[in-house]
């Protein structure tokens, strides 16, 4: 294909954490020989991990600076043949859709890294930050490689490898460093996601064999291809719509459904969402942050990249169903939120509700809908990490998350109350904060296609306000419960994780243009494929 290597930046970004992980493993091996003190070993592995994630963040800034928002194609392409006998290539690149996710990943992972080290603020008692530190850092860095790779990969096989690479560290991070029911949560997460991956694998193989002849990057002709750009071009040319049916079902439709279910588990979409509350509640704070901030977006990203871009005809066929599920996600999860007693579980369900907006917006396939969906991915990627960090702050102090058990905390923790108010307001879509932009655009885009579904979904704005305000009232307002009179306000570690996100939420609320500028051209290209122009 025409994409030749132009830059190795993405490769460096993706594998920098893996190099860090390698260093830590080397350190652990050295430790058997020289037996360092535990504190030294812990701190050095923390430092390595910290520097690696910081390095990724700096490279991400470089990426942002070098990205040309006026081009629709892939940029920063790194492309070579990887396994010639299977026509598998190594193909990395970003367009306007994936770059937003890559930048978000770099940022949120760095924030989560700060939340993973016990520096800059005291931590009382047993805490995951002091437990098996080198192992945690290795897993954390591998996870980052997996996530970045997933967003950058443009070869389906390579995408799949990264997708699976992400899974295992996540399993261990929940299963070892998690809360009381960590094993249940970890296995549930693992098996659920694995089931999705299996579907994806089948669809990938199906697409590969249905694809037409192509050429590898070095010009060698190939019978079939894993190249996502080539597959998309074939799909948009109607190649898969006319492929031989499978079990009596149209090929493109069955592949669409397979991929869609695979991705919807990650989103998560009702009724595949129940792994999420368990995983979130048990995962340590930084892992919840990554889970909500980035992993959920992978499902939605996959849908855009594969379902919509490769199988536009099937996407049109399934739009109504997706919209229905989006609506169910939004409203149903909002009501479930209202019933939660555990703060973290409530926040987890609120993620389910907000990812419903992404589904609804994508299903609308109008410019406002799709732009709104992608913007919601970004804004939710900033807001939900804030929410989980906030839940972590109180859990670290009180060792409980029972909403009813608090009360009057605003007196003891005014700064915390303020930042939580900001995060809640952003999440409930207060205009002027980032959450509103995506929410409004989704409603605007969906209304013209699915009037009833949009109206029903819009009732969630009331329910969402109710569960957030009720939580604020029960936790922060009223009389101070004497049990909590010893709690203390935010420390610097928590401030440097929360404030940057808070500032970005406000800035993008009033000035979202930088995000639009990044993604507009690519979204327009996608819309040309799937949208009716409005």
């Amino acid at each position: 294909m025409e994409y030749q290597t132009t830059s190795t930046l993405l490769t460096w970004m993706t594998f920098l954490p893996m190099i860090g992980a390698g260093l830590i493993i080397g350190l652990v091996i050295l430790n058997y020989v020289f037996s360092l003190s535990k504190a030294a070993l812990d701190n050095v592995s923390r430092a390595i991990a910290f520097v690696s994630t910081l390095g990724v963040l700096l490279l991400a800034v470089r990426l942002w600076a070098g990205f040309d928002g006026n081009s629709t194609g892939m940029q920063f392409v790194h492309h070579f043949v990887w396994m010639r006998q299977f026509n598998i290539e190594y193909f990395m690149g970003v367009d306007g859709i994936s770059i937003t996710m890559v930048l978000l990943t770099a940022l949120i992972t760095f924030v989560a890294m700060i939340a993973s080290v016990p520096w800059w603020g005291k931590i009382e008692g047993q805490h995951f930050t002091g437990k098996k530190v080198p192992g945690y850092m290795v897993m954390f860095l591998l996870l980052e490689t997996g996530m970045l790779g997933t967003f950058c990969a443009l070869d389906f096989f390579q995408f799949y490898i990264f997708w699976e690479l992400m899974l295992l560290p996540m399993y261990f991070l929940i299963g070892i460093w998690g809360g009381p029911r960590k094993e249940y949560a970890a296995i549930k997460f693992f098996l659920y996601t694995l089931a999705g991956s299996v579907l994806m694998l089948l669809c990938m193989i199906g697409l590969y064999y249905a694809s037409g002849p192509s050429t590898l990057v070095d010009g060698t002709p190939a019978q079939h291809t894993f190249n996502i750009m080539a597959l998309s071009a074939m799909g948009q040319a109607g190649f898969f719509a006319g492929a031989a049916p499978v079990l009596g079902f149209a090929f493109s439709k069955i592949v669409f459904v397979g991929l869609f279910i695979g991705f919807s588990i990650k989103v998560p979409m009702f009724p595949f969402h129940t792994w999420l509350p368990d995983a979130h509640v048990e995962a340590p704070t930084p892992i919840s942050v990554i889970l909500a901030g980035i992993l959920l977006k992978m499902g939605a990203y996959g849908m855009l990249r594969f379902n919509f871009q490769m199988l536009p005809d099937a996407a049109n066929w399934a739009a109504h169903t997706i919209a229905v599920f989006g609506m169910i996600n939004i409203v149903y999860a909002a009501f479930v939120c209202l019933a939660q007693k555990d703060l973290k579980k409530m926040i987890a369900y609120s993620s389910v509700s907000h990812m419903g907006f992404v589904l609804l917006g994508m299903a609308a396939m109008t410019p406002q809908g799709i732009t709104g969906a992608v913007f919601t991915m970004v804004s939710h990627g900033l807001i939900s990490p804030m929410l989980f960090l906030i839940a972590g702050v109180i859990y670290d102090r009180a060792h409980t998350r029972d909403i009813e058990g608090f009360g009057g905390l605003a007196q003891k923790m005014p700064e915390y109350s303020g930042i939580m108010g900001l995060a809640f307001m952003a999440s409930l879509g207060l205009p002027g904060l980032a959450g509103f932009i995506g929410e409004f655009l989704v409603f605007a885009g969906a209304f013209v296609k699915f009037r009833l579904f949009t109206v029903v979904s819009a009732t969630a704005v009331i329910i969402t306000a109710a569960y957030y305000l009720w939580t604020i009232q029960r936790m922060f307002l009223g009389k101070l419960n004497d049990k909590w009179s010893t709690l203390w306000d935010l420390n610097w570690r928590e401030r440097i994780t929360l404030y940057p996100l808070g500032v970005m939420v406000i800035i993008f609320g009033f000035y979202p243009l930088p995000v639009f500028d990044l993604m507009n051209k690519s979204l327009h290209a996608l819309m040309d494929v799937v949208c009716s122009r409005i």
Partner: protein
Amino acid sequence: MTQYPLLALIPLLPLLGAAYNAFVGARMQKRFGYAAVHVPAILMPGISFVITVLAFARLVSLPHHERVLTTTLWSWMPVGSVDAGVAFLMDPLALVMCGFITFVGTLIHIYSVGYMHEEPSYWRFFSYLNLFMFTMLVLVLADNFILMFVGWEGVGLCSYLLISFWYKEKKNAVAGMKAFIVNRIGDFGFLLGLLLLFWSIHGVTGGSSVVFRNIEEILAQPAVREALSSQTVLGLSLISMIGILFFVGAMGKSAQIPLYVWLPDAMAGPTPVSALIHAATMVTAGVYLVARLHFVFALSPLVMSWVALVGAVTAVFAATIGFFQHDIKKVLAYSTVSQLGYMFIGVGVGAYWVAIFHVMTHAFFKACLFLGSGSVILGCHHEQDMRRMGGLKKFMPVTAWTYFIACCAIAGFPFTSGFFSKDEILWKAFDSGNLLFPGGGLMIWALGALGAVCTAFYMFRSYYMTFTGEYRGAHGHNGHGGHQPHESPRNMTHVLVVLAAFSLVAGFIGLPHLWHLPSYLHHWLDPVFSGSAEIIRSAGHGSGHEWALMIFSVALALTGWAFARWLYRDNRNAAPSRLIESKHPLVCGIHRLVYNKYYVDEIYDAVFVGFVMWFRKICDWIDRNIVDALVNFAGLFGRLVGRVHGLTDTHVVDGAVNGTAWSIASMGSALRLVQTGNLRTYLYIAISGAIALVIMNFILFG
């Protein structure tokens, strides 16, 4: 359209003030005292007022029909035809709103210095107050719907923050929450109205906009009007549906039936907040919305009639509740609901400028009343019950006089501001030819007149109970006991005097045409509403009617006053207490019904809150016992199949084959339920799920 970059400063300065106090206010307060908090907080809206005056001068210098100032800061949401900018627009309507908001707002900031002087979170109060000024000014100055929505929800947020300002009391926190959530119901209407309007226009013309001026231009085309009136949705014409949805938004913000319930509870906030937000400015946003969208509302006589009717019924309904309230702020709260009803009568009959006139005069006299009540509350050591006041006139003469003047204004005594604005509304209602129901104008007018006599009665009742007779709180009931009431500090009384003066004279900018004197306000607002002027029809009653009605209104006001004076003056008449203690079932029943505000709160609690609380439990139950149980069941099933396979493998196939399965299974040994370790099983489950979805898709959407 004239560019006027200073416009942006009007909202942004208070934002700056809010940020200052939010971030450094606490430290400044500790270090340099309270002045470091309130001086910038007062200065910012003060300068906004000055800029508003400058903008006024600029507007005046322009030709009558080109009086529009704009400025665009940046493009905000450029997505398809949704192209909203952070852009401000000042036309004569926005100027009037802006003018009294910044003026009254600044005065209330000054007043708060005295009222809140004992408050430790002084900085927080002023930060919220400035933030409110910002959002309110954005609401008024926005040049498009979406930016207006920022202000629209923003004022709701500030209202929430300020109602629950004293959050240690659970009651206040709950009141704040109620205000926000009821407002959100209104916002839901606003949002849907906006979407329906946007896409309806899009459906007709193939392009659309969210900018007010563009929409007005599009709706001026007869073809578009025709299309929007003839296409229907749910049995109503599109334009009526749009109007109703926007009116739901207005009802929430402006506390009209059935969404008024939050406003009386909002009195839990500090009194200057009640004056600023819950009387003078924010609650009039609904009226402003209808006036701003006159080009939408005017197209649907059905919606206009509804607006007028809801306003009229609210005016009377809330006034009756005011009869038996003992809390001085609650009386004023119901009076606000009732006065807002009058404003909706005004916009409902198409007399937009008169409604805005009443918004403005109401801002003066209601702010004066609220601040007066605040002065009383402070003077009586945080006592709000009028039964424990009385005779305050000799302790706090300035407060008493200004309160009396404002009472005269709200009751509509001749030549006060309320007289001109309310009378004009009633006359326009009587003379309206647009109302769709039988007896239209007469009915609305009759309700309004009934409300007027009630208003005069309960307002003077509150005056006489509070300021005349013997002081009844001398022995103290709340631990403060024994203190004499005292007049408030000078910065507070000065504000009262200024507001009382405006309550008296502000009406002269809108003299009735009947008197053949110039109505400056009508002339000033004329270019804004000229677009819909041709649609609004009058019934054509003559000036004889108008004279008669005017005299009749004065008589009504005097009747209400005389009645209140007879019953409550000096607390000598025993009739009120006899009535309350009456054992007659009818009297007793009516009193109980009205005293308990017709049990509306209780009904809402039982029906709506009850439903939501029940439904959330259902959803939660489904989630745990059906959706998640299915997952766990799938896990269990997988484990069973895995065991069968395992047995087969052990006995039939080489034991080494299940090594992989074992290793995965052992990872999950802690969890028996979902553990399986067999990939094939999951494949089966996943594929059967996929097939189920495909089948469902075929059945549902073919």
